Protein backbone atom coordinates (compact mmCIF):
# COMPACT_ATOMS: atom_id res chain seq x y z
CA UNK A 1 0.00 0.00 0.00
CA UNK A 2 1.24 3.41 -0.84
CA UNK A 3 1.94 5.83 1.96
CA UNK A 4 -0.51 8.33 0.50
CA UNK A 5 -3.31 5.76 0.51
CA UNK A 6 -2.54 4.87 4.10
CA UNK A 7 -2.65 8.53 5.11
CA UNK A 8 -5.91 8.99 3.26
CA UNK A 9 -7.49 6.12 5.18
CA UNK A 10 -6.14 7.34 8.50
CA UNK A 11 -7.32 10.88 7.88
CA UNK A 12 -10.79 9.65 6.93
CA UNK A 13 -10.71 7.92 10.34
CA UNK A 14 -9.56 11.16 11.95
CA UNK A 15 -12.72 12.84 10.65
CA UNK A 16 -14.79 10.40 12.76
CA UNK A 17 -12.44 10.86 15.71
CA UNK A 18 -12.90 14.63 15.61
CA UNK A 19 -16.62 14.18 15.21
CA UNK A 20 -16.89 11.96 18.30
CA UNK A 21 -14.73 14.44 20.20
CA UNK A 22 -16.86 17.45 19.28
CA UNK A 23 -20.23 15.75 19.70
CA UNK A 24 -19.16 14.54 23.14
CA UNK A 25 -18.07 18.02 24.24
CA UNK A 26 -21.17 19.75 22.87
CA UNK A 27 -23.38 17.24 24.67
CA UNK A 28 -21.54 16.64 27.93
CA UNK A 29 -20.31 20.13 28.82
CA UNK A 30 -23.88 21.44 29.36
CA UNK A 31 -25.23 18.12 30.61
CA UNK A 32 -22.52 18.20 33.27
CA UNK A 33 -24.11 21.35 34.71
CA UNK A 34 -27.34 19.42 35.20
CA UNK A 35 -25.40 16.56 36.80
CA UNK A 36 -23.63 18.96 39.17
CA UNK A 37 -26.90 20.55 40.27
CA UNK A 38 -28.61 17.17 40.54
CA UNK A 39 -25.80 15.93 42.75
CA UNK A 40 -26.05 19.05 44.96
CA UNK A 41 -29.85 19.05 45.01
CA UNK A 42 -31.45 19.41 48.42
CA UNK A 43 -34.24 17.17 47.14
CA UNK A 44 -32.85 13.83 48.33
CA UNK A 45 -34.23 11.48 45.61
CA UNK A 46 -32.65 13.57 42.85
CA UNK A 47 -29.34 13.77 44.70
CA UNK A 48 -29.34 10.01 45.26
CA UNK A 49 -30.24 9.11 41.68
CA UNK A 50 -27.55 11.44 40.37
CA UNK A 51 -25.02 9.98 42.77
CA UNK A 52 -25.85 6.47 41.60
CA UNK A 53 -25.57 7.50 37.97
CA UNK A 54 -22.17 9.11 38.56
CA UNK A 55 -21.02 6.04 40.45
CA UNK A 56 -21.98 3.68 37.60
CA UNK A 57 -20.48 5.93 34.92
CA UNK A 58 -17.19 6.24 36.76
CA UNK A 59 -17.19 2.75 38.18
CA UNK A 60 -17.55 0.72 34.98
CA UNK A 61 -15.42 0.74 31.81
CA UNK A 62 -16.53 3.13 29.09
CA UNK A 63 -15.98 0.29 26.62
CA UNK A 64 -18.52 -1.83 28.49
CA UNK A 65 -20.98 1.07 28.59
CA UNK A 66 -20.67 1.49 24.84
CA UNK A 67 -21.29 -2.24 24.28
CA UNK A 68 -24.30 -2.18 26.60
CA UNK A 69 -25.82 0.73 24.66
CA UNK A 70 -25.03 -0.94 21.35
CA UNK A 71 -26.51 -4.32 22.09
CA UNK A 72 -28.80 -3.61 25.05
CA UNK A 73 -31.81 -2.59 22.96
CA UNK A 74 -31.71 -5.89 21.06
CA UNK A 75 -30.78 -8.27 23.86
CA UNK A 76 -33.01 -6.72 26.50
CA UNK A 77 -35.96 -5.47 24.46
CA UNK A 78 -35.65 -7.32 21.16
CA UNK A 79 -35.50 -4.00 19.33
CA UNK A 80 -33.74 -3.74 16.02
CA UNK A 81 -32.29 -0.26 16.03
CA UNK A 82 -31.01 -0.26 12.45
CA UNK A 83 -27.58 0.21 10.94
CA UNK A 84 -27.01 3.75 12.16
CA UNK A 85 -27.58 2.84 15.77
CA UNK A 86 -23.86 2.44 16.41
CA UNK A 87 -23.36 6.17 15.88
CA UNK A 88 -26.16 6.97 18.29
CA UNK A 89 -24.89 4.47 20.83
CA UNK A 90 -21.45 6.00 20.49
CA UNK A 91 -22.66 9.60 20.95
CA UNK A 92 -24.98 8.79 23.85
CA UNK A 93 -22.38 6.60 25.55
CA UNK A 94 -19.63 9.19 25.37
CA UNK A 95 -21.89 12.08 26.35
CA UNK A 96 -23.41 10.49 29.44
CA UNK A 97 -20.06 9.11 30.54
CA UNK A 98 -18.23 12.42 30.22
CA UNK A 99 -21.13 14.40 31.69
CA UNK A 100 -20.63 12.41 34.91
CA UNK A 101 -16.97 13.40 35.11
CA UNK A 102 -17.62 17.00 34.10
CA UNK A 103 -20.47 17.22 36.60
CA UNK A 104 -18.17 16.21 39.42
CA UNK A 105 -15.54 18.73 38.33
CA UNK A 106 -18.19 21.47 38.15
CA UNK A 107 -19.47 20.52 41.58
CA UNK A 108 -15.99 20.76 43.05
CA UNK A 109 -15.58 24.17 41.45
CA UNK A 110 -18.93 25.49 42.56
CA UNK A 111 -18.42 24.31 46.13
CA UNK A 112 -14.97 25.90 46.26
CA UNK A 113 -16.37 29.41 45.81
CA UNK A 114 -16.26 31.06 49.24
CA UNK A 115 -19.52 31.65 51.10
CA UNK A 116 -18.64 35.35 51.26
CA UNK A 117 -19.07 35.75 47.52
CA UNK A 118 -22.68 34.61 47.75
CA UNK A 119 -23.28 36.80 50.80
CA UNK A 120 -21.80 39.88 49.15
CA UNK A 121 -23.99 39.30 46.09
CA UNK A 122 -27.05 38.73 48.27
CA UNK A 123 -26.57 41.94 50.24
CA UNK A 124 -26.06 43.89 47.01
CA UNK A 125 -29.43 42.59 45.83
CA UNK A 126 -28.35 40.22 43.06
CA UNK A 127 -30.92 37.56 42.21
CA UNK A 128 -29.98 33.88 42.57
CA UNK A 129 -29.57 33.58 38.80
CA UNK A 130 -27.48 36.76 38.56
CA UNK A 131 -25.30 35.58 41.42
CA UNK A 132 -24.61 32.29 39.69
CA UNK A 133 -24.11 33.64 36.18
CA UNK A 134 -22.15 36.80 36.99
CA UNK A 135 -20.33 36.05 40.22
CA UNK A 136 -19.98 32.30 40.69
CA UNK A 137 -19.71 30.81 37.19
CA UNK A 138 -16.82 32.95 35.88
CA UNK A 139 -14.80 32.10 38.97
CA UNK A 140 -15.69 28.42 38.68
CA UNK A 141 -14.48 28.32 35.06
CA UNK A 142 -11.07 29.59 36.10
CA UNK A 143 -10.78 27.14 38.99
CA UNK A 144 -11.80 24.02 37.07
CA UNK A 145 -9.87 24.66 33.90
CA UNK A 146 -6.82 22.52 34.83
CA UNK A 147 -9.04 19.57 35.77
CA UNK A 148 -11.13 20.05 32.64
CA UNK A 149 -8.00 20.08 30.49
CA UNK A 150 -7.10 16.65 31.84
CA UNK A 151 -10.53 15.26 30.99
CA UNK A 152 -10.63 16.81 27.53
CA UNK A 153 -7.23 15.39 26.65
CA UNK A 154 -8.33 11.97 27.91
CA UNK A 155 -11.41 12.28 25.70
CA UNK A 156 -9.27 12.66 22.57
CA UNK A 157 -7.66 9.31 23.35
CA UNK A 158 -10.89 7.67 24.52
CA UNK A 159 -12.49 8.24 21.11
CA UNK A 160 -10.47 5.18 20.03
CA UNK A 161 -12.87 3.06 22.12
CA UNK A 162 -15.47 3.58 19.38
CA UNK A 163 -13.65 0.80 17.52
CA UNK A 164 -15.65 -1.74 19.58
CA UNK A 165 -18.80 -0.46 17.88
CA UNK A 166 -17.34 -0.91 14.41
CA UNK A 167 -17.05 2.83 13.80
CA UNK A 168 -14.18 3.47 11.47
CA UNK A 169 -12.45 6.18 13.42
CA UNK A 170 -8.71 6.57 13.28
CA UNK A 171 -7.76 3.75 15.64
CA UNK A 172 -10.02 1.27 13.79
CA UNK A 173 -8.44 2.35 10.51
CA UNK A 174 -4.93 1.95 11.89
CA UNK A 175 -5.81 -1.49 13.22
CA UNK A 176 -7.29 -2.57 9.88
CA UNK A 177 -4.36 -1.30 7.85
CA UNK A 178 -1.83 -2.81 10.23
CA UNK A 179 -3.52 -6.21 9.93
CA UNK A 180 -3.75 -6.15 6.16
CA UNK A 181 -0.26 -4.74 5.55
CA UNK A 182 1.45 -6.55 8.43
CA UNK A 183 2.98 -3.24 9.40
CA UNK A 184 3.60 -1.23 12.51
CA UNK A 185 3.62 2.02 10.56
CA UNK A 186 -0.13 2.85 10.72
CA UNK A 187 -0.05 2.63 14.53
CA UNK A 188 2.94 4.94 14.63
CA UNK A 189 1.28 7.48 12.37
CA UNK A 190 -2.03 7.29 14.26
CA UNK A 191 -0.09 7.81 17.48
CA UNK A 192 1.59 10.90 16.08
CA UNK A 193 -1.75 12.28 14.89
CA UNK A 194 -3.36 11.73 18.33
CA UNK A 195 -0.45 13.51 19.90
CA UNK A 196 -0.64 16.46 17.49
CA UNK A 197 -4.41 16.64 18.09
CA UNK A 198 -3.83 16.85 21.81
CA UNK A 199 -0.98 19.30 21.35
CA UNK A 200 -3.45 21.65 19.67
CA UNK A 201 -5.98 21.04 22.44
CA UNK A 202 -3.27 21.89 24.99
CA UNK A 203 -2.40 25.12 23.20
CA UNK A 204 -6.03 26.21 23.10
CA UNK A 205 -6.63 25.38 26.79
CA UNK A 206 -3.39 27.04 27.89
CA UNK A 207 -4.41 30.15 26.00
CA UNK A 208 -7.77 30.24 27.82
CA UNK A 209 -6.00 29.67 31.15
CA UNK A 210 -3.66 32.56 30.43
CA UNK A 211 -6.58 34.77 29.52
CA UNK A 212 -8.16 34.09 32.91
CA UNK A 213 -4.88 34.77 34.68
CA UNK A 214 -5.59 38.49 34.91
CA UNK A 215 -6.67 37.91 38.50
CA UNK A 216 -6.07 35.46 41.29
CA UNK A 217 -7.98 34.98 44.52
Amino acid at each position, binding site marked *: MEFATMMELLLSGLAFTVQIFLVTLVGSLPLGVLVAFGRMSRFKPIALVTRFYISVMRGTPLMLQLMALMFGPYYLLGLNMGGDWKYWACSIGFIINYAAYFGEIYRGGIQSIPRG*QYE*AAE*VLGYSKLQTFM*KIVLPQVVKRILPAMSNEIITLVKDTSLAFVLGIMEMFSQAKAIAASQVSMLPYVIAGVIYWVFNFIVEIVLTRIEKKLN*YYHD
Partner: protein
Amino acid sequence: MTSEQPLVLLEHARKSFGGTPVLKDISLSVRRGEVVAVIGPSGGGKSTLLRCCTLLETLDGGRLAYGDLVVAEEDAAGRAVYAGKAALKEAKTRFGLVFQNFNLFPHYTVLKNVTDAPLHVQKRPKDEVMEHARALLAKMGLAGTEDKVPCELSGGMQQRVAIARALALDPDVLFFDEPTSALDPELTKDVLKVIRDLAAEHMTMVIVTHEMSFARDVADHIVFMDGGVIVEEGPAEQVINRPQHQRTRAFLAKYEGE
Protein backbone atom coordinates in the same frame (compact mmCIF):
# COMPACT_ATOMS: atom_id res chain seq x y z
CA MET B 1 -41.34 58.59 56.91
CA THR B 2 -41.37 60.89 59.91
CA SER B 3 -38.06 62.23 61.08
CA GLU B 4 -38.44 60.59 64.50
CA GLN B 5 -38.90 57.14 63.01
CA PRO B 6 -35.67 55.15 63.38
CA LEU B 7 -33.99 54.00 60.18
CA VAL B 8 -33.33 50.61 61.72
CA LEU B 9 -35.49 49.20 64.44
CA LEU B 10 -34.80 45.79 65.91
CA GLU B 11 -36.92 44.67 68.82
CA HIS B 12 -36.62 41.62 71.07
CA ALA B 13 -34.44 39.78 68.57
CA ARG B 14 -33.76 36.15 69.38
CA LYS B 15 -31.53 33.77 67.48
CA SER B 16 -30.13 30.33 68.29
CA PHE B 17 -27.72 28.10 66.45
CA GLY B 18 -28.43 24.43 67.09
CA GLY B 19 -30.03 25.11 70.44
CA THR B 20 -27.35 27.55 71.56
CA PRO B 21 -28.85 31.00 72.01
CA VAL B 22 -26.66 33.65 70.37
CA LEU B 23 -29.01 36.60 70.58
CA LYS B 24 -31.24 36.86 73.63
CA ASP B 25 -33.81 39.59 73.41
CA ILE B 26 -31.72 42.24 71.64
CA SER B 27 -33.23 45.58 70.78
CA LEU B 28 -31.48 48.19 68.72
CA SER B 29 -32.65 51.44 67.23
CA VAL B 30 -30.66 53.59 64.84
CA ARG B 31 -31.77 57.09 63.92
CA ARG B 32 -30.87 58.92 60.72
CA GLY B 33 -27.34 60.31 60.87
CA GLU B 34 -26.47 58.31 63.95
CA VAL B 35 -23.29 56.24 64.25
CA VAL B 36 -23.62 53.21 66.49
CA ALA B 37 -20.61 51.14 67.47
CA VAL B 38 -21.11 47.61 68.72
CA ILE B 39 -18.28 46.33 70.90
CA GLY B 40 -17.74 43.26 73.02
CA PRO B 41 -15.80 40.01 73.26
CA SER B 42 -15.71 37.53 70.40
CA GLY B 43 -18.64 35.14 70.39
CA GLY B 44 -20.80 37.73 72.15
CA GLY B 45 -23.28 37.87 69.28
CA LYS B 46 -22.09 41.07 67.54
CA SER B 47 -21.65 39.54 64.11
CA THR B 48 -24.87 37.56 64.37
CA LEU B 49 -26.69 40.77 65.23
CA LEU B 50 -25.31 42.37 62.08
CA ARG B 51 -26.08 39.32 59.96
CA CYS B 52 -29.67 39.29 61.19
CA CYS B 53 -30.06 42.99 60.43
CA THR B 54 -28.69 42.46 56.90
CA LEU B 55 -30.91 39.42 56.26
CA LEU B 56 -27.99 37.00 55.96
CA GLU B 57 -29.49 35.17 58.93
CA THR B 58 -33.14 34.91 59.87
CA LEU B 59 -34.32 35.77 63.34
CA ASP B 60 -36.04 33.11 65.43
CA GLY B 61 -38.08 35.74 67.18
CA GLY B 62 -38.48 39.48 67.26
CA ARG B 63 -39.26 42.34 64.96
CA LEU B 64 -37.15 44.13 62.36
CA ALA B 65 -38.07 47.25 60.41
CA TYR B 66 -36.25 49.62 58.09
CA GLY B 67 -38.05 52.90 58.51
CA ASP B 68 -41.65 52.31 57.49
CA LEU B 69 -40.78 48.96 55.93
CA VAL B 70 -41.48 46.02 58.23
CA VAL B 71 -39.15 43.14 57.44
CA ALA B 72 -40.05 40.74 60.21
CA GLU B 73 -42.96 40.75 62.63
CA GLU B 74 -43.55 38.57 65.65
CA ASP B 75 -46.55 36.25 65.54
CA ALA B 76 -48.66 35.25 68.54
CA ALA B 77 -46.26 32.41 69.34
CA GLY B 78 -43.32 34.82 69.39
CA ARG B 79 -41.80 33.58 66.13
CA ALA B 80 -40.37 36.04 63.64
CA VAL B 81 -42.45 36.01 60.46
CA TYR B 82 -40.72 37.55 57.47
CA ALA B 83 -42.34 39.80 54.89
CA GLY B 84 -42.74 38.71 51.27
CA LYS B 85 -40.04 38.64 48.62
CA ALA B 86 -40.80 42.13 47.31
CA ALA B 87 -40.51 43.71 50.74
CA LEU B 88 -37.23 41.90 51.44
CA LYS B 89 -35.88 43.07 48.10
CA GLU B 90 -36.92 46.61 48.92
CA ALA B 91 -35.27 46.31 52.36
CA LYS B 92 -31.99 45.32 50.73
CA THR B 93 -31.91 48.67 48.93
CA ARG B 94 -31.99 50.42 52.29
CA PHE B 95 -28.82 49.02 53.82
CA GLY B 96 -25.29 48.15 52.78
CA LEU B 97 -22.83 45.81 54.45
CA VAL B 98 -19.05 45.96 54.58
CA PHE B 99 -17.52 42.60 55.43
CA GLN B 100 -14.49 41.77 57.51
CA ASN B 101 -12.95 39.97 54.52
CA PHE B 102 -14.09 42.55 51.95
CA ASN B 103 -15.67 39.87 49.71
CA LEU B 104 -14.95 41.85 46.60
CA PHE B 105 -15.59 40.06 43.32
CA PRO B 106 -12.05 39.06 42.32
CA HIS B 107 -12.80 38.71 38.61
CA TYR B 108 -14.22 42.22 38.29
CA THR B 109 -12.19 45.41 38.04
CA VAL B 110 -12.47 47.93 40.84
CA LEU B 111 -14.86 50.02 38.77
CA LYS B 112 -17.04 47.05 37.85
CA ASN B 113 -17.17 45.94 41.48
CA VAL B 114 -18.64 49.34 42.32
CA THR B 115 -20.90 49.79 39.30
CA ASP B 116 -22.26 46.33 38.58
CA ALA B 117 -25.01 46.25 41.20
CA PRO B 118 -26.26 49.80 40.53
CA LEU B 119 -26.35 48.99 36.80
CA HIS B 120 -27.77 45.50 36.85
CA VAL B 121 -29.69 45.27 40.12
CA GLN B 122 -31.01 48.80 40.47
CA LYS B 123 -30.89 49.33 36.68
CA ARG B 124 -29.88 52.96 36.99
CA PRO B 125 -28.65 54.92 33.96
CA LYS B 126 -25.07 54.16 33.01
CA ASP B 127 -23.74 57.74 32.88
CA GLU B 128 -25.03 58.55 36.33
CA VAL B 129 -23.71 55.27 37.81
CA MET B 130 -20.24 55.73 36.29
CA GLU B 131 -19.96 59.29 37.47
CA HIS B 132 -21.11 58.40 40.97
CA ALA B 133 -18.71 55.45 41.15
CA ARG B 134 -15.70 57.49 40.04
CA ALA B 135 -16.57 60.20 42.54
CA LEU B 136 -16.89 57.62 45.33
CA LEU B 137 -13.58 55.99 44.43
CA ALA B 138 -11.87 59.37 44.37
CA LYS B 139 -13.33 60.15 47.77
CA MET B 140 -11.94 56.86 49.10
CA GLY B 141 -8.48 57.84 47.80
CA LEU B 142 -8.71 55.24 45.06
CA ALA B 143 -8.60 57.40 41.96
CA GLY B 144 -6.52 55.66 39.30
CA THR B 145 -7.35 52.14 40.49
CA GLU B 146 -10.55 51.85 38.44
CA ASP B 147 -9.14 49.35 35.97
CA LYS B 148 -7.18 47.25 38.43
CA VAL B 149 -8.50 44.01 39.86
CA PRO B 150 -8.80 43.59 43.65
CA CYS B 151 -5.78 41.28 43.95
CA GLU B 152 -3.56 44.11 42.73
CA LEU B 153 -4.57 46.28 45.69
CA SER B 154 -3.54 46.24 49.35
CA GLY B 155 -6.05 44.99 51.91
CA GLY B 156 -6.75 48.53 53.04
CA MET B 157 -7.50 49.61 49.50
CA GLN B 158 -9.67 46.55 48.92
CA GLN B 159 -11.72 47.40 51.98
CA ARG B 160 -12.18 50.95 50.72
CA VAL B 161 -13.37 49.56 47.39
CA ALA B 162 -15.86 47.46 49.35
CA ILE B 163 -17.07 50.59 51.14
CA ALA B 164 -17.45 52.38 47.79
CA ARG B 165 -19.32 49.36 46.43
CA ALA B 166 -21.79 49.50 49.32
CA LEU B 167 -22.22 53.28 49.04
CA ALA B 168 -22.81 53.10 45.28
CA LEU B 169 -26.28 51.72 45.99
CA ASP B 170 -27.15 54.80 48.08
CA PRO B 171 -28.15 52.90 51.22
CA ASP B 172 -29.85 54.63 54.14
CA VAL B 173 -27.61 52.83 56.57
CA LEU B 174 -24.25 51.14 56.28
CA PHE B 175 -23.27 48.17 58.44
CA PHE B 176 -19.62 47.32 59.07
CA ASP B 177 -18.60 43.90 60.35
CA GLU B 178 -15.17 44.39 61.94
CA PRO B 179 -13.97 46.30 58.88
CA THR B 180 -10.32 46.44 59.96
CA SER B 181 -9.86 43.07 61.65
CA ALA B 182 -8.29 41.48 58.57
CA LEU B 183 -5.87 44.36 58.06
CA ASP B 184 -2.37 45.20 59.24
CA PRO B 185 -2.36 48.13 61.69
CA GLU B 186 -0.60 50.14 59.00
CA LEU B 187 -3.52 49.71 56.59
CA THR B 188 -6.19 50.13 59.23
CA LYS B 189 -5.65 53.88 59.43
CA ASP B 190 -6.87 54.68 55.93
CA VAL B 191 -10.02 52.60 56.32
CA LEU B 192 -10.84 54.22 59.66
CA LYS B 193 -10.26 57.64 58.14
CA VAL B 194 -12.77 56.90 55.40
CA ILE B 195 -15.34 55.82 57.98
CA ARG B 196 -14.62 58.94 60.04
CA ASP B 197 -15.19 61.08 56.95
CA LEU B 198 -18.51 59.35 56.37
CA ALA B 199 -19.48 59.98 59.99
CA ALA B 200 -18.64 63.66 59.54
CA GLU B 201 -21.07 63.69 56.62
CA HIS B 202 -23.72 62.16 58.90
CA MET B 203 -23.88 58.84 57.13
CA THR B 204 -25.94 56.49 59.28
CA MET B 205 -23.70 53.61 60.32
CA VAL B 206 -23.61 50.57 62.57
CA ILE B 207 -20.06 49.43 63.16
CA VAL B 208 -18.94 46.24 64.88
CA THR B 209 -15.37 46.94 65.89
CA HIS B 210 -12.50 46.05 68.18
CA GLU B 211 -10.96 49.51 67.79
CA MET B 212 -12.01 51.11 71.07
CA SER B 213 -10.55 54.57 70.59
CA PHE B 214 -12.01 54.69 67.12
CA ALA B 215 -15.40 53.65 68.47
CA ARG B 216 -15.27 56.37 71.10
CA ASP B 217 -14.25 59.03 68.57
CA VAL B 218 -16.57 58.17 65.75
CA ALA B 219 -19.70 56.75 67.40
CA ASP B 220 -22.56 58.67 68.94
CA HIS B 221 -23.85 55.61 70.69
CA ILE B 222 -22.01 52.51 71.88
CA VAL B 223 -23.53 49.12 72.52
CA PHE B 224 -21.57 46.61 74.58
CA MET B 225 -22.65 43.03 73.91
CA ASP B 226 -21.63 39.91 75.74
CA GLY B 227 -23.21 36.49 76.00
CA GLY B 228 -25.95 37.37 73.52
CA VAL B 229 -27.29 40.29 75.49
CA ILE B 230 -26.71 44.03 75.49
CA VAL B 231 -24.91 44.51 78.78
CA GLU B 232 -24.61 48.24 78.54
CA GLU B 233 -25.27 51.00 76.07
CA GLY B 234 -25.19 54.74 75.98
CA PRO B 235 -23.37 57.79 74.65
CA ALA B 236 -19.95 56.77 73.35
CA GLU B 237 -17.91 58.82 75.75
CA GLN B 238 -19.86 57.53 78.74
CA VAL B 239 -19.63 53.82 77.86
CA ILE B 240 -15.90 53.97 77.12
CA ASN B 241 -14.77 56.37 79.85
CA ARG B 242 -17.27 55.69 82.62
CA PRO B 243 -18.67 52.21 82.09
CA GLN B 244 -21.35 51.36 84.61
CA HIS B 245 -21.23 47.62 84.38
CA GLN B 246 -18.53 45.35 85.74
CA ARG B 247 -18.34 43.27 82.54
CA THR B 248 -17.91 46.38 80.43
CA ARG B 249 -15.12 47.58 82.70
CA ALA B 250 -13.37 44.22 82.57
CA PHE B 251 -13.63 44.14 78.79
CA LEU B 252 -12.39 47.70 78.32
CA ALA B 253 -9.50 47.15 80.74
CA LYS B 254 -8.01 44.75 78.20
CA TYR B 255 -7.87 47.54 75.66
CA GLU B 256 -6.41 50.16 77.95
CA GLY B 257 -3.38 52.03 76.70
CA GLU B 258 -4.54 51.59 73.15
